[in-house]
């Protein structure tokens, strides 16, 4: 590109030599000037910033982290630099996931693992992040291309696969378990998983993986009519898992019967997706850097600008075995958690003497209660707060003897059954 422009400059120069008209020479000079500015533009576009060894709070133009480190100076975050120690997995690099990835990249996250099986298409251009020149690339590779340009300090891993298949799931699990550094959780090599997929099936798969690994994750979703969305924190054993109860979604407030679903699968808006990505990453930052309140569930109804919240306890009858295991473990560690909470409170109260001590004694039991019951918290069958609905019904308990009786008569030989079906297929 730059060479082409240089030769164009030479052509203009020689053209100038053949022209005697002063007015014409002036306009050729003007053209030369424009070419030079294009050359400079392409040069500046090509420069990549080099890696930064330590995050500095120094306020200079060349420091990409100065405004983030200011959060520390203001007392919002205690230790912002810790962000470089965290690994976050983002499943689904679509309208929400790609924007979440960009936000975390700009925040200087340590490592991002990106999962998607799809390629970039022109039909995605109503959403943020991907560019028309990336059409045809896998979404994960295109994301790595853009993100590594924005911030070369972030370690990026691209996994172009379908996590719902048996094979894809194996790779997904292995990649989550692989340790990148000494630190991190017990079973997992990542600190947080963000689910940004657009369907129930894939969410159930992320739920399965995180329940098995005891991995904290956050769910996000945008409704198919593009006007509402939600984010949800899931801590295996501690909060409801995604299979504990039918998925919760924000009621759009539009009469379902008036919705014309014929002829289309789903609509999407860059605005709703951007808002949900922002809510999701904000919650993720609060969780990782330990500031503010981490929302257990936050809904967004864009038609009414209404944000319902709630909490959900795990279902002791959850159909997911790994969830039941994690619930048992959580109950077993309850005495240790209580003791830790108590000693923390005592340590704090010893600093502030006087009547405060009494209040804190009280707080200990409040902590207990909150595990049993807290405001807007909801069991499996409990009433939902205003504006939230279940997306699917619960499974009905089996129809009595019918199914079990029939299962007894099932042939024992699988190959014989295969032969019978083949025979029917051939007929």
């Amino acid at each position, binding site marked *: 590109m730059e060479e082409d422009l240089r030769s164009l400059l030479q052509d203009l120069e020689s053209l100038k030599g053949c022209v005697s008209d002063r007015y014409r020479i002036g306009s050729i000079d003007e053209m030369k000037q424009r070419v030079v500015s294009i050359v400079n533009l392409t040069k500046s576009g090509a420069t990549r910033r080099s890696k930064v060894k330590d995050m500095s709070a120094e306020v200079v133009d060349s420091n990409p982290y100065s405004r983030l480190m200011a959060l520390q100076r203001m007392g919002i975050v205690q230790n912002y630099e810790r962000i470089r120690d965290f690994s976050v997995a983002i499943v689904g690099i679509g309208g929400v996931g790609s924007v979440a990835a960009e936000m975390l990249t700009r925040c200087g996250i340590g490592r991002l693992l990106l999962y998607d099986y799809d390629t970039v298409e022109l039909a995605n251009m109503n959403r943020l992040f991907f560019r028309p020149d990336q059409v045809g690339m896998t979404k994960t590779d295109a994301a790595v291309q853009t993100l590594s340009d924005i911030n070369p300090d972030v370690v990026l891993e691209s996994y172009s696969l379908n996590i719902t*298949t048996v094979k894809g799931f194996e790779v997904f699990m292995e990649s989550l378990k692989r340790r990148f550094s000494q630190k991190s959780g017990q079973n997992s090599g990542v600190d947080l998983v963000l689910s940004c997929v657009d369907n129930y099936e894939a969410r159930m798969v992320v739920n399965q993986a995180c329940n098995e690994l005891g991995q904290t994750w956050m769910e996000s979703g945008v409704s198919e009519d593009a006007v509402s969305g939600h984010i949800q924190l899931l801590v295996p054993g501690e909060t409801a898992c995604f299979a504990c109860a039918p998925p919760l979604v924000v009621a759009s407030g539009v009469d379902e019967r008036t919705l014309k679903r014929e002829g*289309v699968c789903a609509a999407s808006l860059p605005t709703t997706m951007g808002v949900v990505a922002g809510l999701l990453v904000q919650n993720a930052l609060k969780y990782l850097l330990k500031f503010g309140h981490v929302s257990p569930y936050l809904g967004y109804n864009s038609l009414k600008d209404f944000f319902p919240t709630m909490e959900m306890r795990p279902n002791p009858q959850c159909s997911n075995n790994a969830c039941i295991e994690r619930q048992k473990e959580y109950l077993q560690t309850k005495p240790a958690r209580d003791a830790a909470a108590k000693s923390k409170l005592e340590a704090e109260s010893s600093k502030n003497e006087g009547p405060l001590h009494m209040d804190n004694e009280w707080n200990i039991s409040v902590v207990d209660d909150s595990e049993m019951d807290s405001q807007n918290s909801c069991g499996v069958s409990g009433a939902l707060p205003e504006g939230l609905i279940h997306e699917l019904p619960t*499974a009905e308990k089996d129809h009595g003897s019918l199914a079990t009786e029939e299962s007894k008569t099932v042939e024992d030989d699988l190959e014989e059954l*295969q032969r019978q079906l083949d025979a029917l297929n051939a007929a």
Partner: protein
Amino acid sequence: MEGWDPNTKSALTQIPLLSTRAGPRDGAAWTQRLKEEYRALIAYTTMNKSHDNDWFRISAANPEGTRWSGTCWYVHNLRRYEFALQFDIPVTYPATAPEIELPQLDGKTHKMYRGGKICLTVHFKPLWARNCPRFGIAHALCLGLAPWLAAEVPILVDSGVLKHKDDESTSAES
């Protein structure tokens, strides 16, 4: 069963129900589930043939029974339109239904997700969820694919997007 046509309803009630809650990662329990799947598919295919309503062929594409392929067809204006059919059994099966794909129609209709996955009606997932783990592959075909073909094939043919294979070969010759 609100929102379903009477034919789908009556076919559905005649497909044997399954009872083992097991997915492809569950070892011996999955083998048991597979047997139940076969039994339901055999019963459903037999029933379709006896009602002169045979409309699909399906068989396992790998020994584990986690991938299935076959064909399905739909008759519109006395002409038969046939499509290749495939799907994977998801790791979270039967909590989530298989996502049925018709790769030949990928990109030809809005009622399809990328990769040729058919877009199911709003009634499918709730019914599947309510009947987990009693519904299997045969039920997914009956409740998911059959109504989809009945709704979409006439539209695709009448709008000219879908050509009958005989017309395609004649137009190629002329």
